[in-house]
């Protein structure tokens, strides 16, 4: 290796001397033992040297280029700056939120107590979605989702008391009373025989029900399924089957589908069930990348799953064992996914970088090189 390095250095010396105008043969005569090796390369170097000294730069070209350069700089600078430079999704959301909140304060949180069917009710839901989107802490985000679930139940209770008919979506524990009355979070459900069969497998689970509430008659159920919570975060601890992901306690069971190699410090995407007050039960865990100290990435707003977890029979059995029976849930389209902001180009080599070589465009070699 040192010999090779010497050869490379020797070659560099020869090149430098060629550049000063020394004759090729004179130079080679000093290194007779390397002459045969160096001659073809140095002849190539002589050919590669641009003939006729330094190229004269056409003045018009330089002036044209300078004019374009300055004009473009001026154009960019005079472009009105947007209120939020490089407006991101969160930025856009924030600005709309500010406006929203301004409006809401003005009407004394008029929307907060609304129930489905009232004019301001959609405002309430939009504010909630925005709140969710802006909460980056995974633990508080999940709490918020549950809080919103409780609000839906409270709204349904109010509709029930007022004897109104409205479309509702409520989530809570599915229970069956001794008189075969099915309830979710205390709300009465009207189930078809087929739905009862499904409900039996879901008893005790935290589920989501979509249907029409008809006053005191309860909810005429259109669908019932497990309520899934998806989120992503940094894996902070693994203790037996109890993992901590960005402060959230997650149970990882045998049936949990794990993709990638989970290690403390890595980022993971999870699809979970609400197990009890303190724990979420992981159905799928996907390791998405290396260690990251960044804030958790935004997950999809609705907290709904976008990957359909495959729940096999054995999973069902085990869920049974953990008293969280299940059925395969319908996947929901995630409402928003967000592209990561600009990614930094990784350096292509680990060499001692003196300067950063820019890569404004991806380049490929025009042809393969037999080297």
């Amino acid at each position, binding site marked *: 290796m040192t010999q090779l390095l010497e050869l490379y250095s020797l070659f*560099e010396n020869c090149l430098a001397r060629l550049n000063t105008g020394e004759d090729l043969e004179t130079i080679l005569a000093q290194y007779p033992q390397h002459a045969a090796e160096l001659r073809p390369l140095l002849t190539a170097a002589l050919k590669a040297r641009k003939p006729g000294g330094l*190229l004269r730069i056409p003045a018009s070209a330089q002036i044209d280029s300078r004019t374009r350069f300055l004009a473009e700089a001026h154009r960019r600078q005079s472009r009105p700056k947007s209120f939020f430079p490089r407006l991101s999704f969160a930025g856009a959301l924030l600005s709309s939120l500010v406006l929203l909140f301004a409006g809401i304060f003005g009407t004394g949180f008029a929307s907060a107590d609304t129930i489905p069917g009232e004019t301001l009710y959609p405002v309430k839901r939009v504010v909630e979605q925005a709140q969710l989107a802006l909460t980056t802490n995974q633990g508080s985000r999940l709490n918020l989702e549950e809080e919103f679930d409780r609000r839906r139940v409270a709204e349904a209770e109010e509709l029930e008391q007022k004897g109104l008919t409205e479309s509702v979506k409520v989530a809570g524990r599915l229970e069956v009373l001794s008189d075969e009355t099915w309830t979710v979070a205390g709300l009465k459900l009207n189930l078809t025989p087929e739905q009862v069969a499904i409900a039996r497998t879901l008893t005790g689970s935290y589920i989501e029900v979509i249907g029409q509430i008809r006053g005191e008659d309860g909810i005429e159920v259109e669908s019932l399924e497990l309520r899934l919570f998806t989120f992503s975060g940094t894996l902070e601890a693994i203790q037996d089957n109890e993992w901590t992901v960005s402060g959230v306690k997650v149970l990882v069971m045998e049936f949990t589908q794990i993709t990638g190699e989970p290690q403390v410090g890595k980022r993971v995407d999870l699809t979970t069930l609400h197990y009890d007050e303190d724990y979420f039960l992981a159905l799928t865990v996907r390791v998405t990348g290396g260690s990251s100290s960044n804030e958790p990435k935004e997950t999809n707003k609705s907290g709904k799953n976008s990957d359909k977890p495959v729940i096999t029979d054995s999973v069902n059995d085990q869920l049974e064992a953990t008293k969280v029976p299940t059925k395969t849930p319908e996947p929901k389209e995630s409402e928003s996914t967000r592209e990561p902001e600009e990614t930094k180009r990784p350096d292509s080599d680990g060499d001692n970088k003196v300067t950063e070589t*820019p890569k404004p465009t991806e380049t490929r070699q025009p042809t393969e090189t037999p080297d």
Partner: protein
Amino acid sequence: MTADFPRHPGLYFYPMGFPLTPDMDIDGLLVRAHQFDPQALAQLHDQLYPQVYRYVAYRLDDPQACEDISSEVFLRLLDVLKKKAQTVLSARAWVMGTANHLVMDYYRKKYRRKVENLDNHNHLSDHPSPEGETESKMIHQEVRDAMLNLTDDQQHVIALRFSQELSLEETAQMMGKTVNAVKVLQYRALAALRRQLDRRLK
């Protein structure tokens, strides 16, 4: 294996290849260029332009494309200047690297379009020129064509070193490599060039 010249943290720009008047503060120039000060931008442009132009002209035999690419390099420099000042560790290395990529893009597009047969250089004789000049032009075209079969880095190192006789250290700085790495690279590049030239003779 460290570079033979000092490194400077943050914003820095090496005034190596061109003469600077003593009162010219190159750091200050880049700071002002970052703020899009027109005078600073004009100075920066005029200092870097000749090197970029020579580099591109070395690699392509098409005066119009050469002007376009050189100009494009500077428009792109605005993007970098506009961002954080410290991304311009060396504006010169940046513009030369960008020139390299744009030249590679140019050739890629040309191959894709197959507009022109690379071995067809009738346009060389468009303008009557002295016998000797035509011959050296032919030789250089031969080198250019042969270079296209080299790797990206090999082409870049040859163009940097031979378009304007940059020193080994300057070349290393522009490529973001160590001096020793450049020694190895240029040796291999010229060996590869030699092979390509020989192949063409057969």
